[in-house]
């Protein structure tokens, strides 16, 4: 595919923002400033950024727990995101939801369930609404390779297929569900894509460490979906760089294999491409790192300075 320089730069910037966000999450957690558990998305950013490069105004999104940075990509300010993560009043749920629930409906984000897969069907519901109103948009729903084995995923796929709903199921196959290797949980090599055929859906497997490869596969599938031909499955193969949560020393896997995979770095690949094509120079790249980091530091300072909700507010938002 031919790409404009603007497109490549936009993709790179989004990728870098996700990378630095996920890294900042790890660093901030290490400083003891985050009360819950975080699940670092380092290594998997291209799956989300490449897929979402096909998004259009009016689409709906169901994120996963693995790349919280997506919320920022879709519109949630860093201040709001870090406030929720740090349990402050200025977060989207006032700190009642936390790191897994950084979400704002005004950006068409459907929310996330920490009961894995129980939220997969939401995208179908949002797609129903689009169909109901005759709107030509679509819904994206992200889930992991481990989650791919839960029943609600299969029910949601069948429902979307039988109702021809405009949904893209995106399986972030980072090869582990906590410690369980994908081969221990699925009888097929591709727990996302290989299941699509059972529901009459097209699918693709993309190199999840290459944002352009993901984008191209996502583009083909979303073209199919946007043409009104029903749902599809995209699987992105990558590798979870860190433990499932911080503190997980990953005794269940081979460090040498991890190091090999970490060389397949989606951000480094894009930087090389942009430098080779002379679209950007190293100084400009360094400058972007600095700017994004500054933005995040300011957002974290804002969140730290923000008050928490009080016990009197504990029931707020429970009922309309």
């Amino acid at each position, binding site marked *: 595919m031919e790409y404009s320089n603007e497109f490549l730069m936009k993709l790179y910037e989004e990728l870098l923002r996700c990378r630095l966000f996920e890294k900042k999450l790890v660093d901030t957690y290490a400083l003891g400033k985050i009360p819950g558990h975080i699940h670092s998305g380092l290594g998997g950013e291209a799956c989300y950024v490449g897929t979402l490069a096909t998004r259009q105004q009016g689409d709906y999104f169901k994120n996963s727990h693995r790349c919280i940075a997506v919320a920022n990509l879709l519109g949630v300010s860093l201040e709001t995101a870090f406030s929720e993560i740090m349990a402050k009043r200025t977060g989207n749920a006032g700190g009642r939801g936390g790191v897994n629930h950084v979400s704002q409906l005004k950006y068409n984000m459907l*929310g996330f369930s920490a009961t894995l897969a129980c939220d997969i069907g939401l995208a179908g519901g949002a797609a129903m609404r689009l169909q109901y109103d005759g709107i030509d948009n679509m819904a994206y729903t992200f889930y992991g390779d481990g989650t791919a084995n839960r029943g*609600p995923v299969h029910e949601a796929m069948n429902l979307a297929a039988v109702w021809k709903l405009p949904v893209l199921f995106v399986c972030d196959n980072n090869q582990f569900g906590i410690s369980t290797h994908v081969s221990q949980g699925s009888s097929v090599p591709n727990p996302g894509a290989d299941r699509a055929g059972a529901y009459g859906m097209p699918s693709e497997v993309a190199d999840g460490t290459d944002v352009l490869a993901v984008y191209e596969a996502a583009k083909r599938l979303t073209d199919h979906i946007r043409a009104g031909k029903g749902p599809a499955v995209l699987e992105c193969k990558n590798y979870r760089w860190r433990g499932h949560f911080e503190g997980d020393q990953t005794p269940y896997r081979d460090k040498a294999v991890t190091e090999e995979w970490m060389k397949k770095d989606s951000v480094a690949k894009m930087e090389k491409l942009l430098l080779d094509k002379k679209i950007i120079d190293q100084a400009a790249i360094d400058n972007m790192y600095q700017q994004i980091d500054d933005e995040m530091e300011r957002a974290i300072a804002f969140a730290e300075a923000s008050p928490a909700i009080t016990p009197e507010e504990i029931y707020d938002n429970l009922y309309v």
Partner: protein
Amino acid sequence: MLVTFAQAVGDAMREEMRRDDRILIFGEDIAEFGNIFGITRGMLEEFGSKRVRNTPISEMAFIGAAMGAAETGLRPCVELMYSDFSLVAFAEIYHCIAKWRYMHGPEYKLPLVIRSAMGSSFGATGEHSNCLESLYMHSPGLLVASPSTAYDAKGLLKEAIRNDNPVMFFEHKQLYKTKGEVPEEEYTIPFGVADIKREGSDVTIIAIGLMVGRALEAAEALAKEGISVEVLDPRTLVPFDKEAVRKSLSKTHRAMVVEESNKTSGVGAELAAMMQEEMYDELDGPVVRVAALDVPLPYNIELEKYAIPDAEQIAAAIRKMF
């Protein structure tokens, strides 16, 4: 006009769907077939396949879809054929639907209703006879309604459909054929307002669903013996009308809870504890629970009857309170 409970439920949906084109219904066998009790008969013809849809047997998926549709601007009123099968989508209801707005922020409203046929119905056995209100009372974020008359069913369902909170709406199978007076003109019944189905001065029975009728029968029998029974139907369990209970107890000073579900951790357990904590001064004796036996409901009809409270058992338990 005199209508059946089933007709009242159907009419509530039809009237609301005529009023608001954001409302749609879906569930198993509700379209051409008109649901297994005939409640949605004619709705496909009237509203079309866009608003009246059969789903596959995929409770997790269609409850999830109801949620996604509700978030994004529709008002789904979905049917889970039997309340027993709500457990198949329990995590979706208990974790997601109930907690969504709390966990994600105030803009995440879920105006959706989950209707279910519930309760015993002559040999339906252990997996088609359950009364699960207490499970859903236990998940903050849900509203729970369990009407006992055609009038209440219609008014409460219309309110449920208009409400911006998610509602679990239970319809007792044995009540579907019962008839009641329903006005021609439009009305709704607010949630959290109990109804005194019979006034009395010696003892208050709090009864729900099918048990309201049995409590009234018991009250009739006891009246002949000089015991005056007040029958209070909360109609909605969440929110629960505590003030109505307090007012009744300030007159009778004795309380009984009658429910069709089995006793352990049931609705009665919660209400008895609540009264003893909050209304102890009004009570002249312990709150009495009359409930089903702690067994899966047996298939044998005689044993099924034996397991569930009837008017005689209720009356006998009341006599012991004096």
